[in-house]
């Protein structure tokens, strides 16, 4: 039932409304709205009950194992939420003067910038992008600004591996570039020959994730960097998979010129059912002047202040009305402070341990790995193409059936180049027993696929709804309730 269906005309909730008469006298008629908006007229209890019950229909990290590859669904410490939600932080207006009324929050942000420099090996960091994709935008815009600043205006191509996340090509286009896809070889590495052929004077740069979204570490990254740099291009690092290598390798040391981080992945800020995240960018020496503003600077006297156009006149500019998703930045700050150096190094270690253990157990259970000769990074790919062929139950069916077993499905059908694939990322915060349970479920489901494939094809069976008709959703668009 929709909240609107609980509504009754003229029901009121006066406890939440000011006493003022609703009319706002003095506003001339021509400026006024003619009809009341369709908002529900419900009591506070109805709201609380409706949304509490809706919430229970979600799977979430707080309720289920959620091995969603590339998304790094790990524990979001409750302490981060509580401390970022202190009244002093929540009530601060973004335009409150930073000197008299902002040193507390700016101190946190400054220290966060510094810590991110350390973990990435970059020279400068701007926190302002509001998600990974906006970080990518900022990064590619900086690459463009760099080439422009050198009068190097012919470079109109960005290289993107075929396995890349969709935001990479989409971002390149938003920055006015053409996208050139680079194929992947049989072991999941970038096809070096193809790369050599692709680079040239039109190459603005390359966008890479390492470990890639194929779950493997690109071993020849130095060679790639050499090839691209030699051609005059720059290297963009998509930091979505940083969890895999935190403290082990730094993008700056691999030869990347610019990168973003997904704080909502590596630094455990919540995904919130789709967002908000935060996508700070880090840059090497060459791109420092172009960082998006604002950036937090520190005066000689130890006071913090916003650096703006005046301080960074060659900046690519602003990406949001204020300082991006500050509340998310504070959560990541708290998380990093609780981990310290040792804790951060352990993230990569145990994310990798869990992934390799799970890969091995699934492989021993007879599932086929896409890159069996490779170590898993923090994630790995399993292909169900044999199962699909033999039983008729495909990766989607396996995924839906996993929901019945109380596991969120892994990422399916991405990356696109592996057929019937599951991209599985357990993260470091899951315990062994959970991984073992998942293996058991996968085995049971395969047995079901062999004996009664329709059970999978019609799954899920135990959730609030059965399999949904996506085609109909798109064909007969119903995105707004019409009463």
């Amino acid at each position, binding site marked *: 039932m929709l909240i*609107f269906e609980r509504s009754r005309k003229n029901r009121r*909730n006066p406890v939440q409304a*000011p006493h003022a008469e609703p009319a706002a006298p003095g506003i001339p008629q021509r400026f006024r709205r003619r009809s009341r*908006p369709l908002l529900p007229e419900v009591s506070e209890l109805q709201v609380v009950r409706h949304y509490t019950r809706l919430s229970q229909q979600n799977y979430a*990290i707080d309720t289920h194992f959620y091995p969603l590859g590339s998304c790094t669904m790990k524990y979001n410490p409750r302490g981060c939420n509580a401390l970022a939600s202190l009244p002093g932080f929540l009530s601060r207006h973004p335009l409150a003067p930073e000197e008299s009324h902002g040193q507390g929050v700016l101190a946190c942000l400054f*220290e966060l910038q510094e810590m991110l420099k350390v973990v990435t090996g970059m020279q400068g960091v701007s926190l302002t992008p509001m998600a990974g994709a906006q970080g990518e935008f900022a990064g590619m815009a900086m690459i463009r600004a760099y080439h422009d600043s050198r009068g190097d205006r012919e470079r109109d191509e960005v290289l993107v591996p075929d396995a890349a996340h969709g935001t990479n090509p989409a971002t390149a286009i938003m920055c006015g570039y053409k996208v050139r896809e680079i194929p992947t070889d049989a072991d999941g590495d970038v096809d070096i020959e193809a790369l050599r052929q692709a680079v040239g004077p039109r190459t603005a740069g390359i966008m890479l994730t390492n470990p890639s979204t194929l779950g493997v570490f690109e071993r020849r990254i130095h060679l790639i960097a050499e090839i691209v740099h030699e051609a005059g291009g720059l290297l963009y690092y998509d930091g979505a998979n940083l969890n895999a290598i935190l403290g082990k390798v730094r993008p700056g040391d691999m030869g990347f010129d610019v990168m973003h981080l997904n704080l909502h992945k590596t630094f455990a800020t919540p995904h919130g059912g789709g967002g908000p995240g935060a996508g700070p960018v880090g840059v090497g020496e060459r791109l420092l002047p172009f960082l998006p503003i604002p950036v937090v600077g520190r005066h000689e006297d130890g006071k913090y202040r916003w650096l703006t156009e005046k301080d960074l006149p060659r900046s690519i500019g602003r990406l949001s009305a204020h300082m991006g998703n500050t*509340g998310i930045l504070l959560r990541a700050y708290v998380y990093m402070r609780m981990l310290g150096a040792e804790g951060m190094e352990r993230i990569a270690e145990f994310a990798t341990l869990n992934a390799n253990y799970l890969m091995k157990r699934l492989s021993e259970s007879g599932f086929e790995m896409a890159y069996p000769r490779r170590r898993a990074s923090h994630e790995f790919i399993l292909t169900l193409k044999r199962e699909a062929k033999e039983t008729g139950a495909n990766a989607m069916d396996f995924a839906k059936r996993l929901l019945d077993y109380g596991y969120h499905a892994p990422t399916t059908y991405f990356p696109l180049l592996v057929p019937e694939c599951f991209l599985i990322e357990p993260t470091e915060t899951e315990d062994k027993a959970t991984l073992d349970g998942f293996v058991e479920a996968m085995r049971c489901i395969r047995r079901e696929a062999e004996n009664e494939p329709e059970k999978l094809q019609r799954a899920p069976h135990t959730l609030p709804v059965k399999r949904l008709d996506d085609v109909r959703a798109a064909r007969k668009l119903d995105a707004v*309730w019409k009463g």
Partner: protein
Amino acid sequence: MPFVPHTEEEIREMLEVIGVQRIEALFSEIPPELRAPSMEGMLPKALNEMEIGRLMRERAAQDGQPLCFVGAGAYEHHVPAAVWEIATRGEFYTAYTPYQAEASQGTLQLLYEYQTMMASLTGMEISNASLYDGASALAEAVLMAVRANRRSKSKRVLIPATVHPVYRKVVRTIVTHQGIEVVEVPYCTACGNVVPDSLAQYSEGDYAALVVPQPNFFGVLEEVDRLTDWAHTNGTLVIGLINPITAAILAPPGEWGETGADIACGEGQPLGIPLSSGGPYFGFLCCRESLVRQMPGRIVGRTVDLDGKAGFTLTLQAREQHIRRSKATSNICTNQGLMTTAATLYLSLLGPEGLERVASACHDNTRRLLEKVVAIEGVEPLFDGEFFHEVVLRVDLPVNRLLERLAGHQLLAGHSLAEDYPELGDAFLLCCTETKTEADLERFATLLRETMSEMRSS
């Protein structure tokens, strides 16, 4: 180990299954020369939750809780306690994007309800499921309009100078790489809004879109009907940029002019989102149904399951980067989901009448404060246009110094316009919301009076 559940024994068992001796061995594919130095000593020492708690409480307290009359795009409203007590429930807070629809009906239904509320509030037919913030939503709206306007061959858009200055900057950052040119429409310094007749100068120009803010950055009301009709006559799409609170009273973009605006967008923060130094907020974006395929961002649709029961799912994903890649309508992926959760709770708790009361109380308070302060020597309202809940004042003293002094008294009296609108002299933008009491208004007036006379006599 913080947040890592493994015991020594389990680690041993797991390594054995994998067939390696040490965890380190799992990193063997990384070329040794790439291996990072230890971060020990380069990062602050790990703190437990108690220690970081104390530090954060100190930091939060450090910034004080001044009485705040700053608006300028971010507004202090009462947020019902239920909003965040529900929104931070783990099931909302720690879920991913609802790609597995059957396991995400909570988030999906909520977003469908959100879309319905926003579409209705803006008077449009379709809403997406959020963008990052108001400024970037405007940039996406501009990109969308340029894509959508088949009649216009140009990539030029008109943006009045009465649009939030930072929004205009953000639009520039985001759209210029695609060759889009932003043309600034001047405003009347007497009335504080765009004079409709002045648009005649652009009639020959082929513009893909015109942005119309309501109320504008100065709090002044634009002649939205005439601006909209001018645009449509000239084959230009109209992007309405609004404050969703004021939309409870003011005509929404869908009602502007003969046929309504084509796209509506804005900052969602006023709908239950805390000020929080500027974010996370959320951008909303609504449009006519005919433009939906140009819409960036996620959209939730209602459909049926195998049993014919209604359910919800992400739809029209072929617009999005994860399907369409380089041909997507935008690169946006992660959006501001949790903020729309809060906004949906907020709008449900307030209802149509409650929201109207909020808007009306803001405006009443601003009017009452205005009366008090214009009685002070050296203070005058700058514009004679109609305003809504925000107003520009001119003072006969250096405005930045005045505001700084007042901040010293824990009063944030407004936002200085000196930097962005030097032509206006010593002016600042003042905003009242429903949170202000008569005593607060008095305190403002008294402090302003006293501080101004102190400044004069010193």
